[in-house]
């Protein structure tokens, strides 16, 4: 009986493969955009301009406070009202990379603040410009501190990408949802979907743990 269902599910392998591709593509694209904007956010949040930092803090708080599902709906249903028409894929990328940027921004800001002030003072004393201080002294040390949390954030990003299936994007979760309509065995179908996610996320979780252990010993 179980073989019968397995055979039918694997008859849908093009759908599963397409969903897997969408999940990976969407996550990677949002990851790149999210990291770039997130580092910008982090530098502003940890930087000297109090007001800019506070306004950005409110923006970030909003996206940390609301569920990702609501953010996806905002990108898909509210942005068009403001004159920005987005396809489901574009809305997914916008919502996902924006949320990633908000969380990464806070991580980067915390990392920058964790670098001892003596480092920056030494950089100032040796006559570096502000850009040089950041680029050559502070940021490299901050990156070392935050790398484990960044990898952890990537895992969250991949898992959150499943929510975009709610606006009809055919990702891994959506492909499972489609298959379960004709193969009525939810445990099997979503078991396979779960294995798909596990294969991507579990190595990353391990990597994050290893990096964490390494950075702990590095600072002792």
């Amino acid at each position, binding site marked *: 009986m179980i073989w019968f269902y397995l055979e039918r599910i694997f008859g849908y392998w093009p759908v599963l493969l397409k969903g897997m591709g969408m999940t990976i593509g969407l996550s990677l694209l949002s990851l790149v955009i999210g990291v770039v904007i997130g580092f910008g956010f982090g530098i502003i949040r940890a930087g000297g301009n109090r007001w800019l930092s506070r306004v950005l803090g409110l923006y970030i708080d909003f996206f940390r406070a609301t569920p990702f599902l609501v953010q996806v709906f905002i990108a898909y249903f509210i942005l068009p009202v*403001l004159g920005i028409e987005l396809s489901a894929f574009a809305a997914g990328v916008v919502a996902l990379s924006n949320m990633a940027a908000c969380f990464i921004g806070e991580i980067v800001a915390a990392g920058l603040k964790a670098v001892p002030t003596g480092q920056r003072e030494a950089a100032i004393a040796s006559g570096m410009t502000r850009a040089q201080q950041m680029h050559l002294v502070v940021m490299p040390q901050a990156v070392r501190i935050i790398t484990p949390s960044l990898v952890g954030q990537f895992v969250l990003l991949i898992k959150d990408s499943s929510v975009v299936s709610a606006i009809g994007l055919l990702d891994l979760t959506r492909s499972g949802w489609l298959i379960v309509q004709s193969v009525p065995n939810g445990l099997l179908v979503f078991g396979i979907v779960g294995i798909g996610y596990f294969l991507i996320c579990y190595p990353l979780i391990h990597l994050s743990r290893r990096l964490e252990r390494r950075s702990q010993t590095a600072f002792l």
Partner: protein
Amino acid sequence: MLGGLNTRVMMEYLPEIWQGFLATLFLSTASFVGAMALGVLACALTIQPLRWLRAPAVVYVDVIRATPLLAQLYFLYFGLPRLGVVLPEMLIGIIVLSLNSGAYMAEIIRSGILSIPRGQVEAGMSTGLGYMQRMRLIVLPQALRTTVSPLIGQAIVLVKDSSLLSLISVVELTRAGQRIAIDRFMPVEGLVATALGYLVLYYLLKSAAGAWQARNSIPGRG
């Protein structure tokens, strides 16, 4: 941008939004209790020495952490009827949320316990305290101080995650907001009302975490 917001319609749907808000609060609270129980159990199993008791707890935590909540939700929502178990959507939602958050809580509690310096435990041993006494009198009270803030953080995650239950047609805050979108074709009004509800819960929990931190941090140690 929000000048054209139809506040009259929002007021008209206020009772439904309020109901949704209460439902979200209820779902999160119930799941928090369930997750706490599961988290303590899984944590206790992972830190005790017996391998065959530890393995299932480790597998549970890793599998939950490596798969998305939505897939877990669909797994039970579409899967349980297959096993002949028919439960109301709300109960399935609470079970899935508890299972999901339980894994994260196990990790939070574990790292709280492991953060206690080894010397504390050794001091307990040398004064002749048994395992349970050391846990109850020395380790857990100190672990509590560092654990409460991340646990409140997990509660925030839980509140947000409960929005996914709207996808299996549980009526909560997100679903209530969608009603305005569907009945009146006013998605903006619905989403604004929904977002406001979550913001209230977020700031309540965030300030609770801050207050705890302020009262219980050790000067110089954070």
